[in-house]
């Protein structure tokens, strides 16, 4: 009796090409279950009326077209939430990228030769290691009212009345109620984000700057370019891809800002209208009071669209204009050659 089949396979050798598919299968499976399905389901839910009311009664799901979008845009706080998110992101990101650029330039500058670079980098990066929630709780306590560390500091500096502040009964008259005021809270949240992330941005930018060939800087120096010229004419243009990466990741992270503003929110504080971000609003629609999955999903879809559009705009603005021009010129030349 002969068993030819295995022999045949042996003869052919082991076919390894399909193992590749096995190795990448887990990713696709997990992606399908945990990413693609929720994503599609959210889009589906955005067009349904589906909620569990305040008295635990289930309504829906029934198809309602664009009613959820209309509701959240006209009646709900969606626009306010987008404005809050955008404002808090901008006041954190602009100083963050500027400071990160400055620090990255100093750390990579061969002429400055800063000592103890490693220690500085670690210290600057440090806030990013702590969880955002812990930092929020810390700041929440720092800005306590009527008596708290920041108010004590202000009293010591003479910004608020020292005598009134010293007595726990009269402290309320002079102390600043930070977490009740919209702009104060916005600035605190923006500052926490700034403080937590400038180190991270700096590290990314340093990596980008070190990737630029030193010969370019040397050549510029030999040609007598000033440090400013070197920075604006060589460093910045060549850093563009990294800057774009930083911008997009920070934008996406910023649009999803949740933990810090959520933890800084004092129950019953009027500041809420000015600090509620889009994700906080989604959480509120879906988890507080009536559990409205339809409107929650509609705001999620809006958030997705806004993030996508903004990213595309950024890509367009930051595109490599020279490369496009070169490509066009090449095409034109080919055409002419053919003709």
């Amino acid at each position: 009796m002969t068993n030819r089949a295995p022999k045949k396979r042996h003869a052919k050798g082991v076919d390894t090409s399909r193992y590749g598919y096995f190795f990448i299968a887990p990713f696709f499976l997990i992606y399908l279950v945990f990413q693609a399905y929720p994503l599609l389901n959210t889009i589906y839910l955005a067009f349904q009326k589906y909620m569990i009311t305040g008295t635990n009664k289930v309504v829906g799901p029934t198809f309602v077209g664009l009613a959820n979008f209309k509701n959240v845009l006209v009646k709900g706080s969606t626009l306010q939430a987008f404005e809050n998110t955008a404002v808090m992101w901008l006041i954190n990101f602009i100083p963050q990228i500027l400071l990160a650029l400055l620090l990255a330039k100093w750390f990579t500058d061969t002429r400055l030769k800063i000592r103890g670079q490693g220690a500085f980098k670690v210290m600057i990066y440090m806030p990013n290691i702590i969880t955002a929630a812990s930092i929020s709780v810390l700041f929440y306590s720092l800005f306590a009212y009527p008596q708290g560390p920041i108010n004590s500091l202000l009293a010591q500096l003479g910004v608020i009345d020292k005598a009134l502040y010293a007595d726990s009964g009269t402290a309320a008259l002079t102390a600043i109620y930070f977490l009740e005021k919209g702009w104060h809270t916005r600035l605190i949240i923006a500052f926490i984000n700034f403080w937590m992330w400038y180190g991270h941005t700096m590290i990314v930018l340093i990596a980008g700057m070190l990737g630029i060939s030193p010969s370019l800087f040397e050549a510029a120096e030999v040609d007598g370019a000033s440090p400013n010229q070197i920075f604006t004419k060589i460093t910045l243009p060549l850093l563009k891809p990294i800057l774009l990466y930083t911008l997009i990741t920070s934008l996406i992270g910023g649009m999803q800002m949740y933990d810090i503003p959520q933890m800084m929110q004092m129950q019953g504080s009027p500041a809420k209208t000015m600090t509620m971000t889009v994700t906080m609003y989604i959480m509120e629609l879906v988890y507080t009071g009536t559990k409205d999955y339809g409107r929650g999903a509609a705001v999620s879809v809006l958030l997705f669209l806004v993030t996508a559009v903004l990213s595309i705009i950024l890509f367009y603005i930051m595109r490599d204009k020279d490369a496009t021009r070169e490509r066009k010129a090449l095409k034109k030349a080919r055409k002419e050659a053919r003709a």
Partner: protein
Amino acid sequence: MKKIVALIMAIMMVCALVPAMAETYTTDFDVPATGEKFVIYAWNDEFKGMLQNYYIPAVGGTVAEDGTMTLPNGDQIEFVVNPNDNGVYQQKLDAALSAGEHIDMFLIEADYALKYVDSGYTLPLEEIGITADQLAKQYPYTVTVATDSNGQIKGSSWQAAPGLFLYRRSLAEKYLGVKSPEEMQEKVKDWDTFLATAREVNEKSAGATKLIPSNGDVWQVVRTVRSTPWVDEAMNLVIDDQVKWYFDFAKTLRDENLTAMATPWTEAWNAGVGNDSIMGYFFSTWGIQWTMVGNSGGSKPGEGTYGDWAAVNGPQPYYWGGTWLTAATTCSNKALAKDIIEYFTIETGSMQDYCLKSKDYVNNTEAIQAIIDAGFSFDFLGGQDHYSLFQAVTPLIDISAMSAYDQNINICMDAEVNAYASGEKDYETAIQDFKDAVVDMYPELTAE
């Protein structure tokens, strides 16, 4: 928020020491073992401590050093605790209930009791073997709250929560010349007098002491004496004159700096019990033994503000809070649920024992009467018998303004009343924003 949790835990540890010294009350235990953990959902450690310090020792079970509770039949009791702040407890509980997770019992508070009573997630007491007759000694309002629209009783409370006004004897004498609780009651007998007294305290102390911590404390009273609930039968948000009155009262308090601006449950609010910045608090039964004693900075007369407090009725009879025990539909051990509910909310003997040791105010008219007859005094209140005051207030409790939406609507209102009081918004804007926020949170409601 973390601070509050830490504080409550600290209070718990102190409380845990007290009953350990007293004689243990014992009762029979004949619940068959199921081999499964008995899971209880709660928003703080209060009930956990009650089981550890009273029920478990009484039935002859053991509490391990890490707090693990084992019954004589070998079954264990497990707690899942999520704080009430910002409605977290309700979120987590709802998620677990709708996912069909195994929950044996869960606790509900007055703020949202109706939501769960009128739902399919709670078992009627009859189904676990407790009859309506057994609840005859409870205060009738606590039974009404736990009765669903079909007339079935779904929960049972171990405490009644009538509220009083607590004040510092020494500060009252210093600034108001008041020497007895009777004189003090005259100073706070209605809201106009209360406001005048608040001005007097502020003036005489040059702002160093305030009569109350914040406007939110006033709301704790007013919310329960309202004539209408937030939501009427037509599912419409009702904003009555009492709400308008409260908005204006809050503004007056703030404009004239008559409160310490210490919002309930914040650090300053808790600390105020132990220092001279705040003269009085509105508290109900559990608040005195659970919150005030722990924050007073002492554990016997002479330490901190312990013993310097006294209780009076205040401007209006009101209630604050109250906890009901319910058996979940997924309850795996109905006999144990029955035994726990009976121990804390039905049996006079065990309730009297718990009442005397904890200074809570139990939901058992017979036990309370017996305690008062035997001569009750509480050294925290300078030897006052405040149970007599509670006993007089409890029959006046009116729950007609209670609705399933209270907690979340009150949170919405807080933000607007503070915006109005601080002058950030005018009344019309604040009320309109309040209506919008409520309808946004509960789209099934309307607000005209």
